[in-house]
């Protein structure tokens, strides 16, 4: 079970009460707490208390450069964030527009490649699997410097390849400027993102292998062709995997930061198309060291992320297939 399924199933189990427990059970429970105490301390110190403190910060005027001049300003930071700072909404829109482009493409590519790599007709399957996974092992920063070279409009190989295969004059200053052209930038980012779908491919592969083969045999007897079998058996059976990848993808995109920070300087260039929410947050919280406003921005991100995740989980029962619901 993936941790995503775990959340839905964990609720159903029975409850233990301290006063109903025998001494032996209490002894066991005590040891259970001892073992997990490390996490509880860590959770309090690095999650719960910072979350609460973060809310506390958001009602302060707290510049890190002036630690002696902290003032209580009420909801001023929140007002500024929600009604004055246009870049908040702009960066949120940028994040969602990019998510709407890149998430579906990423999911389709990961599933498509998994189907290809699972095909009985593919010669040298293990080698192909390794090689397709390989780029996911390249440290992101190194990958980005390589990509910035590949996407270079004059010396990059992508433009040379396009010009060589299609004849379109892609090379040069008037050619395809992947990282400078607002209408191309998300395509470039998506291509880079697709490079790292190795984990999603492997999870999809495992999902494909767990589909019972008798379903395919039955469909074949009924005369279903390849596309029909894909659409009516494979895809419904791997919806839990798609769901898992979707949750992880969404969480990752809310934190999307390194790519625009490295490739476009973290200042929104070109024309604010790369001013993702995390970039805006980073600029305020750590660039300007404005702890109060930064904390408010972090909280807004938490709320939006929470709502989206809940919506996604709520939608799961309409389209995600779970066998043996009773267990």
């Amino acid at each position: 079970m993936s941790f995503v399924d775990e959340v839905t199933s964990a609720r159903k189990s029975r409850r233990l009460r301290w006063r109903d427990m025998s001494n032996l059970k209490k002894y066991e429970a005590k040891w259970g707490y001892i073992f997990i105490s490390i996490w509880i301390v860590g959770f309090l110190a690095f999650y719960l208390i910072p979350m609460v403190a973060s809310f506390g910060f958001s009602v302060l005027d707290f510049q890190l450069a002036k630690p002696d001049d902290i003032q209580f300003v009420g909801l001023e930071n929140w007002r500024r964030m929600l009604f004055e700072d246009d870049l908040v909404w702009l960066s949120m829109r940028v994040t969602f527009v990019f998510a709407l482009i890149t998430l579906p493409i990423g999911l389709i590519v990961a599933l498509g490649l998994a189907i290809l790599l699972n095909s009985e007709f593919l010669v040298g399957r293990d080698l192909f699997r390794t090689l397709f996974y390989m780029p996911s092992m390249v440290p992101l920063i190194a990958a980005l410097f390589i990509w910035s070279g590949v996407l270079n409009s004059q010396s990059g190989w992508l433009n040379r390849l396009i010009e060589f295969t299609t004849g379109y004059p892609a090379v040069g200053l008037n050619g395809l400027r992947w990282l400078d052209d607002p209408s191309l930038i998300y395509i470039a980012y998506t291509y880079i993102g697709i490079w790292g779908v190795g984990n999603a491919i492997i999870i999809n592969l495992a999902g494909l292998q767990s589909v019972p083969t008798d379903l395919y045999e039955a469909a074949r007897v009924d005369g279903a062709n390849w596309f029909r079998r894909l659409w009516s058996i494979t895809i419904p059976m791997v919806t839990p995997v798609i769901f898992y990848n979707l949750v992880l993808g969404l969480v990752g995109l809310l934190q999307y930061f390194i790519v625009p920070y490295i490739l476009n300087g973290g200042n929104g260039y070109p024309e604010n198309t790369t001013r993702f929410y995390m970039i805006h947050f980073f600029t305020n919280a750590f660039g300007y060291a404005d702890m109060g406003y930064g904390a408010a921005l972090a909280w807004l991100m938490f709320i939006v992320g929470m709502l989206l995740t809940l919506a996604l989980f709520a939608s799961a029962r309409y389209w995600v297939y779970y066998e043996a619901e009773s267990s």
Partner: protein
Amino acid sequence: MTTTLLSEQSAETLERVAANTARRKQREWLVKFGVTSLAVLLLSLWVMPLFYGVVTSLKTKEQIADPKASILPAAAITVEFEGKEYDVYSVPFEDGTVRELALYKKGRQASTFIDPNNLSAEPIEWEGIWRQLDQARVVSPTWSNYSEAWTTVKFGQMLWNTFFYATVGMIGAVSSAAIVAYGFSRFEFPFKNLLFIILISTIILPPQVTSVPTYAFWVWLDMVPSWWPLIIPMFFSNAYNVFFLRQFFLTIPREMEEAAKIDGAGPFRTFWSIILPQSGPAIVAISLFHFFFAWNDFFGPLIYLTGARDQVPITVGLTFFNGIYASQPQLIQAASIMTLVIPLLIFFFAQRYFVQGIVITGNK
């Protein structure tokens, strides 16, 4: 279907079956060829950036900038004659042969060439426009880009920083996660499910959300810039690792633990001498995950270490490098390749653990 046909035993159907199988075999070969070629095509697009990185890291700056230069790092061939350098060109002749000759005397309509293999021979007159000729090149990788990239930014120091951070963090993250995972997998206690759901939901919580007060706290403790803010939290376990190890512990049969308990072993002893020795592959997988996470980590080191140039890991160091040598793409590519070599090597050797690990957490 074939079995029912065979049971009829008539010679005619047997023949038809044979023909059918041959045709099916043929079709299968065709499909195999098609599918594999598709995979090869996609793969070449997939790994193209890596090839670009390797090839570019071996070029000179001029070879990268020249749009007519070949894909591979090739240098123009020159010949020394009478104390001067002459460029070698591929020169076509009327009889269809192409010879590699050094351009000796340039002319508008005709030029004089010399044979680089036989410099003392008579110069060769050639009719035609020399500017339209292709320069002869030979593959010559500029290996010195690597040593230059290594020394200019104290690459060894950064590599050591990353290695140190990854290793210490790995020890903390794996040992703490194993202890917590044992608690969640073997003991019943009130609020266990609630606590477990809270644990798992922290996977989805972006770490940046808590970063502002945490950062202010470390600044207040006067620990910025330093490694402490990055390493200390590792020792308090993290949700992903705990979940992973718990899944694995749940698959270990309980008989041996029961026996150990009867023999009087306490929970810690049971954990240490029964559970851990059986968890080798899972521990290896989770250690690798952490190692790669740390090798990649950027946001943490960026905010906690930017002020300390000598302490930055390779990820943040590469951005400094990029800032200084923006006009030297060959050095940037060389540094990037050096950064990815170690993770890639580890991956190739430990692939099996790795893939198993991803499947355990991702699949039902």
